[in-house]
């Protein structure tokens, strides 16, 4: 079966088993290894990508279901020499990263979350992280950085008259 979709803004055409998990195509055929295949069962969140702007685990997404969709991976979030996404910049500034394997997925989940929930509280941020496991950091610094990011966006929004993270 032929599947066509947008991958990080470019047309992508695949001919293969439509049940192939998207994560395998990304990693093994496109060498987009920023998407991590950790549990492959949808529990860990390390393989999160955006499909039509919604964060989904790419291990549970058969490529047959991305026909006509726009897929963005961590590599597409801030490509080349582009500035980091504000969340990435906050994680870097807060020294939140340790081994780093969970972070691409964490960034993809939370970038969709902060876009849709500009007024989220700390407990709401934690609730949003239920599908992203981190084995190194103990989470709190990640939560702090997300809260800081929202705070900065709100302050910038007050100046610019709108909120955009």
């Amino acid at each position: 079966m032929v599947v066509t979709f947008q991958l990080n803004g470019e047309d992508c055409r695949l001919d293969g088993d439509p049940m192939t998990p998207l994560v395998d195509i990304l990693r093994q055929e496109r060498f987009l290894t920023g998407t991590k295949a950790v549990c492959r069962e949808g529990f860990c969140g390390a393989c999160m990508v955006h499909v039509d702007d919604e964060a989904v685990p790419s291990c549970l997404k058969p490529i047959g279901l991305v026909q006509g969709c726009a897929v963005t991976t961590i590599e597409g979030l801030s490509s080349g020499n582009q500035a980091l996404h504000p969340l990435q910049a906050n994680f870097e500034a807060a020294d939140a990263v340790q081994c780093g394997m969970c972070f691409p997925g964490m960034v993809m989940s939370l970038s969709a979350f902060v876009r849709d929930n500009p007024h989220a509280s700390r407990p709401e941020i934690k609730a949003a992280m239920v599908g992203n496991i981190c084995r190194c950091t103990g989470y709190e610094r990640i939560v702090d950085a997300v809260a800081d990011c929202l705070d900065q966006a709100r302050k910038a929004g007050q100046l610019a008259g709108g909120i955009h993270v």
Partner: protein
Amino acid sequence: MSELSATVMNLPRRDARDKLRGRTKYTNDRARPDMLHAVLLRSTVPAGRIRKLDVSAALRCPGVRAVATGADAPGLYGIGIADHPLLAIDTIRYHGEPIAVIAAETEKQARAALAAIVLEIEPLAPVFTMADALQPAARLVHEGWRGYEVITEGGARAGNIAWEAKSSRGDVDAAFARPDIRIVESSFTVGRQSHVPFEPRVAIGSWEDGRAHIQTSTQVPWTVRNVTGKVMQLPPGRVRVTVPPVGGGFGLKFDASIEPITALLARMTGRTVVLENTRQEEMATCLCRENAEIRIRSAVTAEGYIAGREAVVLMDCGAYGGEQVFLTTMTAHTLGGNYKVGATRLVSRAVYTNTPPNGAFRACNGVYNTFALERHTDEICEALGFDPMEFRKKNVLGDGDLGATGQVFEADVLGPMLDRMETLRASTGTSEAKADGRLYGIATTVGTWFVFVGPSAATVNLNADGSATLVTSGVEIGSGTMVQSLPQIVAGQLGLAPDQVIVREADTDAAGLDVGVGGGRTTVSIGAASVAACAEVREKLLRTAGEMLQTRPEDLLLRDGRVEITGRPGSGMSIPAVVAHAQATTGPITGSGAFTAKNTPAMSGCAMGHFIDALDIPVFVVHEAEVAVDADTGHVEVLAYRVVQDVGRVLNPRAVMGQIQGGVVQGLGYALHEEVTITADGRIAQDDFETYRLPLAQDVVPVAADLYEGAPSMGPLGTKGAGEVPILAVGAAIGCAVARAIGKPVRQLPLTPPRVLRLLHEREPPPEFPHIAPGWASNTLG
């Protein structure tokens, strides 16, 4: 103190940006289309004899390029004793044991060919528990144990006892016979803990110019090199190991496991071969923190003096000795730590069973021995009517006190740390109000750990652009030592900025021997070797600059990238100018440095079968937990958590705080819900993320921590390792807090809701160990 002010800072991680953008290439991101893929045939029985193993049909399957079995790698490896084959030879000892490996053009082809291997196994009666293994008539997991090569002399061994270490100081019988003491006895049992690094064990092997090259996700490149040499019966120098960034280790990658297989297949095929554990394989064969059984007895006077103490600790090493052989040593320093004791004797035994082998996990052995010791201490306090905090303040180790092996501890550290915990609690307040009708408990516990020192080497090359290249066998596993403390140390020594220090990733062809990244040792051991290397660089740099400036070298100093004349800021010349001159006159400026343990003495005759008789750098912690227990569901919520940690000297406070938060949360998982059990057919039951319950964001609280500086340390600038120890006393603090909340003795971890409910309703049977004899000496090999 200018050296210190140039070293201590909250340096951010240089690897964070690429990690956040998904650009970092971990080992398992490096598979290429031209590589062969290897898959393992693993045992589906826990014990048996291989009657037939025929791989000829598999070799003819599409895409298959090689099949290897134990016969292709006949050497045995291990720690202390060489008991472990790379692939099973004749005997199966655990469910999941690798028996054969297939390399094919694709993973799919390799998997398909597995079915073509003809394997006949005659099952043997498995020995699943330490109780079974210690029965007088128990079947031997290793029938040929007597014939194994002994790598380290000194441990007693017999049958299913892979290794036994003892410590004995003073007349314990006399202490227990005193008329003025009461005897308190406690028994504890703990399960395994799975590391769950997000990057599983993975290796890429190639065969280049007659030598193996293994790229792998490991904490111990030199161990992988040496083990590969051993099993392939090659001089280890014919193996090169390089290490990309590691996606989590936590001790799991502190031993070799599947890496040598890739070198073997690369030699057979002439191709590059990748082998990566699936998540299921990774968890089913995880070299877990071992399950253990502990019986401890103390003789205590009415005044609260611990006159005598004895303990038996059984550690399940699983099918092969591995790290547990070494870790028997640690009981003397963990269960034998924390408190002043009159006379003491401790035995720990690593016991073979037909279960997946265990290994090293952050603060190995210490985590459960600290749980046992602290709960036992609370049971002493309850039996004799002491206040637990006052009892601890009175009895913790201080200056001049003796450890279990007769080591003399220096300085009062734990006592002042307990005071600091009270100050910290006063500043944060307590959280009892949040219990909101649930059962509330608070407990303060102490712990003793150490820095695992040992050999490290470093080379520093000073470059003509003013940068320095640091070459070591250190590995960045996530803790930040390679990107924070080490460049900070080198920069501080040479008057550079940390971003001018290039840190080479581990390559056993480029750097000297190193024990590995673990045991909280990297900042201390590689750091000390780096300081020594910098001393040579400094000496050469100042000598050259002295000639150029017509000034004595002792009147020069290094600051802000310049060689300056002391007392005249801005004088002298830039480091690049001096380096360029040296390159043209005496040659490039390089320095090398080395470090190893100082081997602090124990008391003569006190330590038997120990790999470390005394601690060169003890590390202490004080942990305090507040919990609320729901009496209807048994659920334990952690309301607050506080830590005072002995860090010696903190080089990067923010990085250390990150290690404390992460280590405590791993400990909360161990204490509350990370549970590994063995099925009736010998498998680890929890082999995925659905069945193994890791801590999630909503389970955790921000840890309040106070870094205690100033305790003596031989580490560079007075440092101690800070990444290992945060997990040490979490099981203890949670166990003690839950026991106080529910008013029942806690003698087992993890405290899952069903277990807490059983404890509340007195339906949880206390641990009983019929295989531990009443008399201490009967539990030793004499």
